[in-house]
């Protein structure tokens, strides 16, 4: 009996000491793991809250802020009707993106995210914002590709933009299919710097390639 109690006590003590260590990687990993379970605006908001909390502790890390902005951009896409709400989510994302650019001005992923953010602004009101935000989005993705031509997310955002505009002008967006397929085959060649670096986008690309068939 005593043995059991003792061994349990040892386990608990070691758990406590582990929890007291700043486990940035572990927490980030766990929080990122929840991405796939998020289904609605509230889920993403809760997830964004976590990243916000982590960003607050880890003032020199850019990844928590990156995912914080990413969550709020996704929220704007998930919100179905209320344009004012969409804009309010994007106001939050905008601040994080601006901080990111100050923090890591040479990070390709950040500009790819900024481009994605502009697309979200455009989608709120395409008629009014089409010209301004398609231009801004194009500039941002251009910067992302200049910093790292192999960044698959930047290539994906550019591809989506090109396909959208082809469709709009009555050209066949499928002319971009070979490009999409090529990007998919190369996708896994791009190795994120760590397991918690951005790696999203493959599902969207597979969706596009599927649409090509």
């Amino acid at each position, binding site marked *: *009996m005593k043995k*059991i*109690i003792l061994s*349990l*006590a040892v386990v*608990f*003590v070691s*758990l*406590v000491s582990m*929890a*007291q260590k700043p*486990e940035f990687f572990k*927490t980030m990993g766990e929080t990122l793991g929840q991405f796939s379970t998020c289904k609605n605006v*509230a889920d993403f*908001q*809760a997830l964004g*809250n*976590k990243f*916000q*909390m*982590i960003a*607050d*502790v880890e003032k020199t890390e850019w990844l928590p802020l990156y995912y914080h902005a990413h969550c709020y951009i996704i929220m704007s896409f998930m919100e179905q*009707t*209320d*344009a*004012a709400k969409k*804009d*309010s*989510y994007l*106001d*939050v994302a905008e601040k994080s993106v601006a901080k990111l650019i100050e923090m890591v001005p040479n990070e390709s992923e950040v500009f790819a995210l900024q481009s994605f953010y502009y697309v979200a602004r455009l989608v709120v009101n*395409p*008629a*009014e*914002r*089409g*010209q301004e935000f*398609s*231009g801004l989005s194009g500039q941002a993705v251009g910067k992302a590709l200049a910093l790292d031509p192999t960044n698959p997310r930047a290539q994906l955002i550019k591809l989506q933009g090109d396909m959208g*505009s082809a469709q*709009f*002008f*009555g050209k066949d967006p499928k002319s971009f299919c070979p490009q999409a397929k090529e990007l998919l085959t190369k996708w896994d060649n791009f190795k994120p710097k760590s397991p918690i670096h951005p790696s999203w986008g493959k599902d969207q690309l597979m969706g596009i390639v599927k649409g090509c068939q």
Partner: protein
Amino acid sequence: MKRSIFYILLSLLCQIAFSQTIITGKVTKEQGEVLPGANVYLKGTYDGTSANENGQFIFKTAKTGQFDLQAEFMGYEPVSRKVELKGDTIRMNVQLKEAFNQLNAVIITAGTFEAGDKRQAITITPLDMVTTAGAKGDVYGALQSLPGTTTNGESGRLFVKGGDSEESQTYIDGSLVYVPYNPSAPNLSTRGRFNPFMFKGTIFSTGGYSAEYGQALSSVLLLNTNDMPAEDQFDLSFLSIGAEFAGTKLWKNGAITGSLTYNNLAPYMSITPQNYDWVKAPESKTGALSVRQKTGKTGMFKLYSSFENGGFTINQKNLDQGGSPFDYKLANDNYFMNASWNGQLGEKWAMTSAASFTNNKDDIRFNQTTVGKRIVGVHLKNVFSHPFTEKFTLKFGGELFAKTFSQNVQMPAEMHYNSFTNHTIAGFTEAQVYASSKFVTRIGARVEYSDYLKSVNLSPRLSAAYKVTGNSQFSLAYGWFYQNPLDDYLLYTNRINPERADHYTFSYQSSINKRTLRIELYYKDYKDLVKTNGVAFYLPSSYSNLGSGYAKGLDLFWRDNKTIKNGDYWISYSYLDTKRDYRNYPEKVIPTFASKHNLAVVYKHWFSGLRSLAGINFKYSSPRVYNDPNSPIFNGEKMLPYRSLDLSWSFLYRKNIIFYGAVTNVLGFKNEFGRRYASSPDSGGNYPSAAIEPGSNRFYVLACFITLTRKGDANQLDKIE
């Protein structure tokens, strides 16, 4: 027994080992509504959670000691509370206060239609000016589908809330445009001088505007030109009435655009039926240059300069000589220059400087008479603004309006030359105070002195807005407005004073999800209007400030961007009740420019398959009055109602090529704007007359806009996307 001891020990151990504290509570707004999604966490740790749909939160932490519990939610001031973690349960409810943010705070909307804002509370945008059917690509034409305006088909100018067209002023980038309209023949419609593509934003204020603006009794139209162009480009526009070529070149932080425009209505008029006999169809040549330069971190310098030369000759019936026809010839030279700079001066001060210069010459010849008119105008303005706090902003500034107007009339037997020069200097100040994000007041005053009239005026201005709910608000505006009398009177006298109008405006606006409703009630009290006694126009004693009048009405506006997919419509209705005694009126009567009921229905539909934006537009104005000198009742005659159904079609052929077509008055409603009369009766004692008709029953526009860039994918109507 052994087992229970084990569990007790275990739970005890858990407590000691983890010393877990449970923190639970509820996050609400000040008014008690819950805030789902609020972030609650211990500052500096990874411990925290989000409030659930009932605003409740619960989380455990293994930390001990003093920590800050932070609660935050977008749009609210974060709240931080000290907590002592010692392994028990902490219950804590947190109230969050809405953060003050001018972007989301209430804005004063009484009398104002603002456009070009990236926010949702948009009522009309610059794009509307181009795509509204019936506007014919004219800034003023588009504004005439908004409430508070009355369409006067024989003028084309803006008539706002019972005000004459001279009572409206146009400002570009903060400075006055002395001659905003193209010259036109008597009783024929004109249009604005400026291409709507030049502007990124407009504010159309139909009353109760800021102390910053003076010398306008009825309305101000504030046009803001585009900022920096995105890339080098070359624009070609071909219209059924002319062509334009424009080139833009960028450099670091700056850009220059040069354009040449040539319009000639002769080919168009030769193939479409016209109601008048044009000897020489309207023709104009314009050269314009615009420069943009960013200065420092925040500053922007803009310069626009244009020279236009135009003219026409029209053959009209001379009612005084038994209807024998004569030629009326007009030649116009207009030079306009406008410059502005705005930016920050240090951390807290913002400054806007604006200047404009106009030199406009009209040379008119008819029936052995020549009339030369010349306006030389300068406007200088400087405005400072300083936000003392987020909620209190003070604005002040000064301006100078200098104008010389001269008129030279030569007839076979006589010749008159008259001119005057006036300098009006003005100073103004205005404070904007937010009591909260729901309530704002703006209090200002303006002083003006005219050296020609030797008059000093003080105009108080007051406005306020209160947000009832997130989406709806009430606004009030009040003020005194002064304007110098008509140039035609000032040529002969300076013994009159500026005219005055007091505005009382009450407005309600609700904007929910791309649907906007606006209801506005107003009353305008006109004082000191100039009257002429009809004895002799050249005697100063013929003019007095004894006139007066009123205008009251109801304006309704409904815009819905939502109900119809890819469709957008608005309905504008204005009820106007006005009478005035001014100019040569014998008593207080309804003026000729006022319609009791004005209706505009505008619909636009985006056909994505056809890459086309189609517009349809219906306008109705109830019959206006006019004066028949043969009748004892002044302004006793009624003209036909004004009706027009207009269509437009914009087609995006390529990303850089747009085709555009429009027809006004498709159904061919008969529109007539009263009659004009001879200045003296014939031998039978009757004043002969002729109907005033529009230039043509229908107007057609065909156009093609091409934009060439290095990338080859920009266009002038990109916004349609």
